[in-house]
């Protein structure tokens, strides 16, 4: 039985879709069978980030409504053999998803794949709750910034209350993935530090993704950064996070900005 991982955040624009693609691709590259499911019905984007936007024929709603088979809707990645995408519907409204329907699709995926990553829509409404409903684990994508941390806290509350596992009295494993981390700004005390975020959310850390131009470039090119530029800092951080997700005990190193002359002069401390 595969593991179902929801990638969620509450707040929009923090990097859920980018992180779903990067983590999923990193896990798939190790030979595991991985399915990425886009739950953002009406506003799908995972297909674009994966570079599969022109290959979408059927989608999650088609499968749920029975107008397409799951095998017809799954798009195999052109770069990694074991990586598949189940796109969201672009045209229908989000009420097209039913809990029973989603549950059936997730069950089928779970029986075939090692990992099922559910890319949640932003917000805390129905779509986001359905994306997390059947998850075994959750990756909470957080920017070191007040509104994102607050929304992550809300989402953590929902994960502990509204998931099937929580309702059955089981634990859902939660991990915080800090994205767009700027070591220089954090060291100057202008940005919440990793310690701040973890202390506030009291949830274990999956990884720290540095703010990087390469991530944007990867999105432009329609390739997860872990596939297109696996050697750059952001990609390495995603690959490490993926290894931790698979249970490897890999220490997290907080990106460190060397003190500049001005910082020394002003006695600024690095985080």
């Amino acid at each position, binding site marked *: 039985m595969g593991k179902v991982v929801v990638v969620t955040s509450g707040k929009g624009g923090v990097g859920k879709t980018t992180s779903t693609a990067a983590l999923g691709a990193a896990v798939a590259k190790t030979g595991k069978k991985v399915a990425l499911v886009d739950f953002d019905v009406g506003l799908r984007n995972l297909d674009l980030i994966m570079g599969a936007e022109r290959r979408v024929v059927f989608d999650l709603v088609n499968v749920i409504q029975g107008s397409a088979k799951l095998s017809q809707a799954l798009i195999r990645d052109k770069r990694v053999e074991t990586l598949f995408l189940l796109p969201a519907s672009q045209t229908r409204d989000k009420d097209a998803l039913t809990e029973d329907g989603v549950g059936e699709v997730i069950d089928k995926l779970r029986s075939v794949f090692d990992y099922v990553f559910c890319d949640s829509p932003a917000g805390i409404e129905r779509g986001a709750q359905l994306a997390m409903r059947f998850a075994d684990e959750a990756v909470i994508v957080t920017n070191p910034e007040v509104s994102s941390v607050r929304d992550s*806290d*809300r989402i953590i509350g929902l994960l502990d209350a509204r998931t099937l596992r929580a309702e059955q009295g089981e634990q859902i494993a939660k991990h915080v993935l800090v994205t767009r981390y700027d070591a220089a700004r954090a060291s100057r*005390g202008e940005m919440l530090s990793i310690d701040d975020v973890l202390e506030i959310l009291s949830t274990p850390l999956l990884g720290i993704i540095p703010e990087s131009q390469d991530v944007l470039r990867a999105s432009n090119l329609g390739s997860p950064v872990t596939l297109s530029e696996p050697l750059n800092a952001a990609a390495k951080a995603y690959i490490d996070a993926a290894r931790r997700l698979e249970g490897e005990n890999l220490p997290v190193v907080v990106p460190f900005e060397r003190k500049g002359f001005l910082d020394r002069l002003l006695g600024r401390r690095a985080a």
Partner: protein
Amino acid sequence: MNLLDIFKRRSSAPVARERLQVLLAYERRNRSQPDLVSILREEIMAVIAKHVQIDQDYLQVSMDRGETMSTLEIDIQIPNKSAVPLAMAG
């Protein structure tokens, strides 16, 4: 901008942390609360309404969650004049 401002500026992250800690402590406390309190409020109101007519504003229900003990505070005001016992009125 003087030198002091430079020092002040770097302290924005600690301010963010403190504001978040205070806010989230409050939000977490309230998260599980509103449902229970509103249910209690409704039922208490229904019980009182069987015997005495009171305005909704005269019933205050609040819950204070503590580390070891929680308290439920129910404050019911029954105005002397307007509150006519239903049994007598009917």
